[in-house]
C-alpha cells in the first residue's frame, strides 16, 4: 500500500515536472468572416430572462435567413459562468454565448473566444463604455448586446413632503437624505448597498471625484479620490441617513414601504418596482441622474456581451446572428421584449425607448458611463472592495485605512492580465 502511494506521488511529480507555462500570451488577430448567405444550425447559450425570451425572438432571424436554425439553451445566471468555463475545458463550447461584461478578460485569456471580425461589426455604433467591456489587451472579442447603468431612484411623494428636489451634487444628496428622514418619515434615508455587489456603489463615486482604480496596468486604490469616495459613502452612515442594520433582502421593500426614500440602481428596477409596488406606485417615484461629484456624474456600465467561440463549426452563421442582434432595429425590438437597454446608441431614438422618460435618463447616463477594467481577477478584487466597503459602512474602518487595505490586497491578487 505504502509503495503504491509512493509510486503515485512519484508519477505525479513526473507529470508536474513536465508542466510549466510556455509564456506566450494570446496573439489573437481578427479574421474577416464570410458575409454571404448563412446556413446550418447554431447553438446559443443565454441566461436569465434573456435566455427565456431569446428562443422565440430568434425566429425572426430564422425567417430572414432561410436554412439557418438557432437553438437557444437558457440557463441560470448563477451557473452560467462555471458552465462556460467547463465547456471551454472540455472543448464543448456552443457557437454563441451571452456573457457577463466582467467575464471577458478571463474568457479571452483562455484563448477560446473568437476576435470580432472587423468587416461585420462597426464599433462606433456602440456606447464607448460598452465597447470597452469587449476589449481585452487591445483586441475586441464579441459585441456588447445590452447595457445597464446606474442612476438615482427617489420617492417623489416623500421628496415633495420634505420640500426637496432630487439632488444634483454630492452635498445635496446629504441634505436630501437628512430632509426625507427628518420631515417625511423615511426612517432609513437613502439606501446604499454595502454587501454583495457594493463595489457598484463605490466605483461611480471614485470616477465622480476624478480618480480611477487602475493606471498603467496596476491597481490604484490608495488614492485621495478613493478616500473621498469612501468618505462620501460613509457620511450617510455617520449621519444615520443610510441603513446599515437591515437584513439582506430588505431591499426593495424598504423603498416601496417608504422607509428608504432613495437608492442607486439600474434600469431593471423600473420594471421590478412597477410590478412589486402595486397599482399607482409608478407615480410615487422617479429616476434622476447620478448626483455630481467634483469631476462629474460618471456612472457604472454593465450588461451583457455576446461572444462567438473559436470552436464553432458555423462561424459565418454565428457572427451573422450576433450582428443581427446588435442591429439598431433589432435592439429596439429586443428592448420591447425584455426591457434590456440597447448597447447601440442610435436605438435610443426609437419611439418605444423615447416614450419612457425614466429610460431616457439611463440613455443619457450611458454616454459617459465607464466599466471596471476587464482583468481576469476582477471578481476577486471586487470581493476585496466589498469587504472593506462593509467595514466602512459599519463604521469599523476609516476611509483612508480602507483605501490602503484595498490596495495591499488587490496588489496581492494582481490583475491576472
Amino acid at each position, binding site marked *: 500500500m505504502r509503495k503504491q502511494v509512493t509510486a503515485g506521488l512519484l508519477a505525479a511529480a513526473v507529470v508536474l515536472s513536465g*508542466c*510549466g507555462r510556455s509564456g506566450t500570451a494570446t496573439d489573437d488577430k481578427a479574421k474577416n468572416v464570410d458575409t454571404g448567405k448563412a446556413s446550418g444550425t447554431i447553438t446559443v447559450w443565454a441566461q436569465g430572462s434573456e435566455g427565456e425570451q431569446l428562443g422565440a425572438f430568434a425566429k425572426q432571424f430564422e425567417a430572414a435567413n432561410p436554412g439557418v436554425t438557432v437553438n437557444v439553451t437558457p440557463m441560470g445566471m448563477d451557473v452560467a459562468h*462555471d458552465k462556460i468555463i467547463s465547456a471551454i475545458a472540455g472543448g464543448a463550447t456552443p457557437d454563441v454565448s451571452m456573457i457577463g461584461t466582467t467575464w471577458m478578460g478571463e474568457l479571452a485569456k483562455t*484563448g*477560446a473566444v473568437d476576435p470580432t471580425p472587423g468587416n461585420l461589426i462597426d464599433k462606433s455604433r456602440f456606447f464607448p463604455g460598452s465597447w470597452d467591456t469587449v476589449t481585452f489587451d487591445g483586441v475586441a472579442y464579441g459585441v456588447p448586446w445590452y447595457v445597464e447603468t446606474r442612476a438615482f431612484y427617489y420617492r417623489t411623494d416623500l421628496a415633495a413632503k420634505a420640500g426637496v428636489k432630487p439632488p444634483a451634487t454630492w452635498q445635496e444628496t446629504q441634505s436630501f437624505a437628512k430632509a426625507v428622514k427628518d420631515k417625511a418619515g423615511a426612517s432609513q434615508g437613502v439606501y446604499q448597498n454595502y454587501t454583495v455587489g457594493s463595489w457598484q456603489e463605490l466605483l461611480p463615486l471614485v470616477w465622480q471625484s476624478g480618480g480611477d482604480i487602475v493606471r498603467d496596468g496596476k491597481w490604484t486604490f490608495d488614492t485621495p479620490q478613493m478616500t473621498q469616495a469612501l468618505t462620501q459613502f460613509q457620511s450617510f452612515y455617520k449621519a444615520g441617513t443610510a441603513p446599515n442594520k*437591515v*437584513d439582506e433582502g430588505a431591499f426593495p421593500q424598504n423603498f416601496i414601504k417608504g422607509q428608504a426614500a432613495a437608492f442607486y440602481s439600474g434600469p431593471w428596477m423600473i420594471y421590478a418596482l412597477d410590478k412589486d409596488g402595486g397599482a399607482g406606485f409608478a407615480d410615487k417615484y422617479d429616476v434622476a441622474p447620478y448626483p455630481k461629484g467634483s469631476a462629474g456624474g460618471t456612472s457604472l456600465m454593465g450588461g451583457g456581451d455576446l461572444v462567438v467561440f473559436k470552436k464553432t463549426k458555423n462561424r459565418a452563421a454565428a457572427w451573422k446572428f450576433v450582428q443581427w442582434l446588435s442591429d439598431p432595429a433589432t435592439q429596439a425590438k429586443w428592448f420591447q421584449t425584455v426591457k434590456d437597454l440597447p448597447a447601440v446608441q442610435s436605438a435610443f431614438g426609437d419611439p418605444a425607448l423615447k416614450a419612457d422618460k425614466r429610460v431616457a435618463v439611463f440613455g443619457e447616463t450611458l454616454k459617459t458611463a465607464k466599466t471596471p477594467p476587464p482583468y481576469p481577477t476582477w471578481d476577486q478584487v471586487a470581493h476585496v472592495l466589498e*469587504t472593506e466597503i*462593509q467595514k466602512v459602512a*459599519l463604521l469599523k474602518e476609516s476611509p483612508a485605512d480602507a483605501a490602503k487595505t484595498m490596495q495591499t490586497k488587490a496588489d496581492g491578487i494582481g490583475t491576472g492580465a
Partner: protein
Amino acid sequence: MSTAAATRRGLDRASRRAGPAPRRARGRFMAWVFAAPFLILFLVMYAGPLLAGLGMSFTDLRSTDVRHPLNVNGVGLANYQRLMHDDAMRKAAWNTFFFVATGVPLTIVFGLAAAVALHSGIGRAKTFFRTGYFLPQVTSIIGIAVAWRFLLDPQSGLLNEALGAIGVHGPAWLADERTALPSLVAMATWRGFGFDMVIFLAALQGVPRELYEAADVDGAGTWAKFRRVTLPMLRPALLFTVVYSTIGYMQFLEEPFVMTKGGPLDSTLSASYAIYFQFGAGNYGYAGAAASVLFTVIVALSFVQFRVLRPKHL
C-alpha cells in the same frame, strides 16, 4: 491396502493441486468483475477528482488555463503557505470550528431528547411529532431560509416582536456580527436534529427490555437507567450521529449561502463557502489547497471519533 491408500492420497493431492486452483482463480476473477462497477465509478468519480484536486494544489492553475491544464507552473507549498496568512481563510476556519463545536452537540442533545421523549412519553401524538421534527430535514433550504428570515427580521420578525412584548429590544440577528453565526447555528440545529432523532428512535427500540427490568430490580432511578443502560446501548448510534453530523457541519455551506452570503464582515463565512468562492473566482490551485486541508481535517476528526466512540467490546 497401503498402496491403495497412498494412491488415493496421491490422487487427492493431485486433484487438490489441479482442480480447485483454477476454480479459485476464476472465483477471484468473478469477484473483480462484480466489484468492477463500483471500483470504476469510485476511481473515476471520487478518487480521480480527489487526486486531481490534490495535484492542482501544488500548481498555480487558474480558470484561464482550462484549455491547457498541464501548461502551468508548479509552486510547491506556496498555496498552503498563503492559506495560513489569508485573513478570510483563517476567519472561515474559526467560524467552521465554532459551528461544529456548538452545532454537533446541540443537534445530538436535541435529537436524543426528542427520541427519548417520543420513545417513552408521548403516546398518541408520536407519529405527528416524529414527522414534524423530521420535516425540516426534507424541506428545501430555500423555503427554510424564507421562513427563518421572516422569523429573524429585525423590525417585524416574530422573534423580535416576542422579545419586544417583554420589553427587550432584539438585535438585527443576521445583520449583526455577534449574532449572525449563532443564529445560523440555531437554524442548522433546528433543521438537523430530526435526522438524529430518527436514528436514536430506531436504536432505542433495539434496547432489550430485560436490561431496564434488571435495573428496576437493582433500584435504579430514571436518570440512572438513562445514564447506565440507555446511553451505553446507544453507543453505536451515537458514533454514527456524531461522525455524520460532524462531517455535515464541517462542510457547512447552504445556511450562510442563502441567509447571509457569508456576511456581515465574513462573520458567517465557512470553510466550504470560502473554498467555493475561490473556485468560483477561478483560483483552482489555491482552492484545491484549501479543499485538501478541509478534507484532511475531516478525515482526521472522523478517525478520532471512531477511536473514542467505538463500541467497547470491539
